[in-house]
């Protein structure tokens, strides 16, 4: 039986804004949520899915409480981002695309985040972490509950 999702009466008519608000409220954009959003906005479900699946920061599968996004683009690659990726893999025990068993962290590789002069760099949620070295990773991760 699918869980019923209900929205407050005020759902933004702007689909992207509505999806962001729904994600902030419910954690991620489940099929049930997207179906309900389609109904409230009177748009086809595939249109909702089309927008939800387009953007990197919209999550259509459950993610952990904290999302680590390590940049994989060329400038960070030139500054040894692989060492940071390997360190995070080791510290949390998951590979990119996975979520830790305790749901504390999800781990993704992302494209250029505009921190190239302080590479290698990553985002954890909206927090910027730059000038990374493997030795800095543990302390950074420990600061996220």
């Amino acid at each position, binding site marked *: 039986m699918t869980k019923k999702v209900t929205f407050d009466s005020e759902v933004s008519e702007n689909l992207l804004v509505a999806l962001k608000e729904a994600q902030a409220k419910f954690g991620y954009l489940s099929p049930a949520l997207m179906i309900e959003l389609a109904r409230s906005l009177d748009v086809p479900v595939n249109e909702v899915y089309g927008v939800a699946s387009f953007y990197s920061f919209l999550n259509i599968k459950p993610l952990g409480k904290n999302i680590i996004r390590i940049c994989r683009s060329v400038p960070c690659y030139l500054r040894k981002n692989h060492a940071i990726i390997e360190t995070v893999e080791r510290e949390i025990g998951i590979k990119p695309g996975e979520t830790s068993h305790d749901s504390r962290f999800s781990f993704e590789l992302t494209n250029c985040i505009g921190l190239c002069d302080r590479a290698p760099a990553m985002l954890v949620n909206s927090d*910027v972490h730059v000038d990374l070295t493997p030795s800095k990773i543990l302390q950074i991760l420990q600061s996220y509950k």
Partner: protein
Amino acid sequence: MPQTKIVLRNCGFIDPRRISTSLRRDGFKALEKARQMTPEEVIKEVKVSGLRGRGGAGFPCGIKWEGARNSPAEEKYVICNADEGEAGTFKDRYILENDPFTLIEGLSIAGYAVGARQGYIYLRYEYHDLLSLLEDAVNQARQLQLLAGFDVAIREGAGAYVCGEESALMESIEGRRGEPRYRPPFPTVAGLWQKPTIINNVETLMNIPPIILKGGHWFSDIGTERSKGTKVFSVSGDVARPGVYELVLGTPLRELVEDLALAPNVKMVQIGGATGRILPSGLMDTPLAFENVLGAGAVTVFDETRDVIDIVYRTMEFLADESCGKCTPCRQGTEVMVETLERFCRGKGSKKDIKALQDLSNTMMLTSLCGLGQAAPFAVLDTLEHFRDDYERRTLDN
């Protein structure tokens, strides 16, 4: 050559959280002056300046504004493109972090010139940590009655490189997938919500207050024949001093890469990010200008240890990943290029592959719907021209 700070003149000299520090350095004086001119006079000054867009396309700013001015409509919009997603580009982030006030002023002058009462700053979601700083800067300007009937709202992206393309950006603000539109009509005729709209890069708008205060002629005296003013470069990669540098347009690449950024040795430089051109070290005296190579000014330096094919493969991977999927030449073309380059990485390329890459490049440049697909082949074409041996060494029929 030392830097010439026009765009960056306030960075490090004001507190980006306090508008009073900006006002002390002529903040909002240009907006005041602009409002005493007619909108047509403002546009004329920008045309005289020769200012071209700083986001990569280099379209003449004054002509764009004139187009919107001349489009009759009750509502018009001005948008600041802060989606800065091109690989290796971080100058707009630096500007937003250090001088949001001049940007707001530039956007307000744009609004006055074209007849728009509403401006938007489209901020990439990866810069979400800057949102409160920007909102606060707008609030301070509003509270001091500096905006006079013009309002600025911030709209955030949600993670999509292609939303830096102006029509995809508008689709995103409207709440849809960030897929570029067919043009015509162009934004100045039918843009955001089908109203006349101008979209300008952060850096472009930063140039507007100085141009209004000092005049278009002052600006057009700086730079080259077809590239006026300065450009803010984002330097990264194999250099001792990565960072943001502002130089007069026409400065040779070598001065930026070797004298300022201190690259110890150079094999090649990628100028303009993933959709940029690649110059071998032998062409380092090339002047940085629209006439030659520029883009949005991402300068990524590769030293002698770097593998050309590996870099081109990763560049193509980025573009294939970010392709919106709407048009076939880009959606399929970027994927085929990635597959082909991956074979070269493994030493299993062929002469047929090289011909296929060239043919595919021509098709993508001619028929892709937007700049992503049109410029995607540049890294491949430039390296085939300057580093042909690297490809041939990786072919089976060698």
